[in-house]
């Protein structure tokens, strides 16, 4: 029963293989098999969003998806944000605007925001607040996170110009 399965995913642009039990959660495979520990486990009950990764470009809670369900799909984790020329606009925004305090929620927050800016390059404050409403931060009160997103939007626009 429940024989191990081989899961092949493209993680941060690189094909990765892991042998897992069917009950293994995507976040566990990412952290324990692929040793990408930037993705955090917070509540482990589908509430906090700190385990957010992009699955085929859409932000999802990796504690609430089976690793095997990512087979053949594209996964982006926080380790994949940095480009050849350094931090991504979102990462830079969180650094410049100090969009964090303890930093625990930050990887998930940055993944959600990265997807938001892909879809909506110039979000209003209201749109940002709605987009990150599934990602809990218990330190900042969100004010600097929102500044970080605005920073990233400006930075992206500058880069595109």
């Amino acid at each position, binding site marked *: *029963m*429940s024989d191990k*399965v081989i899961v092949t995913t493209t993680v941060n642009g690189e094909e990765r293989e892991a042998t897992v*039990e*069917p*009950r*293994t*959660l995507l976040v*566990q495979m990412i952290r324990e098999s692929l040793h990408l520990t930037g993705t955090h486990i917070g509540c*482990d*009950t*589908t*509430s906090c*969003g700190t385990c*957010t990764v992009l*699955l085929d470009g*859409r*932000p*999802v*809670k990796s504690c*609430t*998806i*089976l690793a*095997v*369900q990512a087979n053949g799909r594209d996964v982006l984790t926080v380790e994949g944000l940095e480009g050849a020329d350094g931090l991504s606009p979102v990462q830079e925004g969180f650094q410049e605007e100090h969009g964090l305090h303890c930093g625990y929620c930050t990887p998930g927050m940055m993944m*959600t925001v990265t997807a938001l800016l892909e879809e909506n390059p110039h979000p209003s404050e209201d749109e940002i607040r*709605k*987009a990150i*409403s*599934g*990602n809990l931060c218990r330190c900042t009160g969100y004010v600097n996170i929102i500044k970080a997103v605005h920073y990233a939007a400006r930075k992206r626009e500058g880069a595109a110009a």
Partner: protein
Amino acid sequence: MLPSTFDYVAPTSLDEAVQALAAGAGDAKIMAGGQSLLPMMKLRLASPATIIDLNGIAGLDTLEESDGMLRIGALVRHADLERSELIAERYPIIHDAAQRVADPLIRNRGTFCGSLAHGDPAGDWATVALTLGAELHAVGPNGAVVHSALDFQTSMFETQLGMDQILVEARIPVPKAGQGSAYLKIERKVGDYAAAAVGVMIVLDGATITEASIGLTNVGPLTIHAAAAAASLVGKSIDAAAAIEEAGRLAMEASQPSSDLRGAEEYKKDLVRVLTKRAVRKAGARAQGKEA
């Protein structure tokens, strides 16, 4: 937290899925979005021996109108409904609810049909499906079966869906001329279940209400069909304050909330009364093209 061990089956056709479900002999579960099932498995509230994942089956993500019905396939995610222009233009009650189900991350994964099959009286979609009179098309070893959203839930987390049946598609009648609808939900925070929520659909001829339907979320052991409240509106003017007041009172009478962390019984009953009135007015304004 890990779920208990299970066998994982990823069929690529509905026939295979039906066979796998039959082979599971009552201890297999269908997974679409998994946003309710997986948390329950992690908490060991559910420990199915077999998981049958629908995500590899092509053609279950239909979201379109055909033959007078809106078809919502088993793999249509909440976010698909939230982003759909067709839904935004023609099904305001679905558009309302799609923005309030769980949180944006869960909405990228969870499905409309999965929510119905889960049978949770706190589920927003069960109320929407009931209010719009959805047909729920399932398939089992003996072929196709159609259930009605009106009496789909039989008790908490129990539905008419047989243990050997898979809910494949919800079909909702396309809006009639003069139809308006709305879904209003009060929640303590994003991602929480409703303290109370109300779905309303009405059809107007001029200012006269010719048809009405009202559903209530999370204020009883089942999703509630407030039939008397809806019937009281028929023949009345959408501008008749007393008629709307009475519908609110009758909806409140139909609700059976219990006191919990989301509020006292009395508070929730009053929420139902007030939300019903607001939703009727909003549906009316939409039917008359006065509001998006």
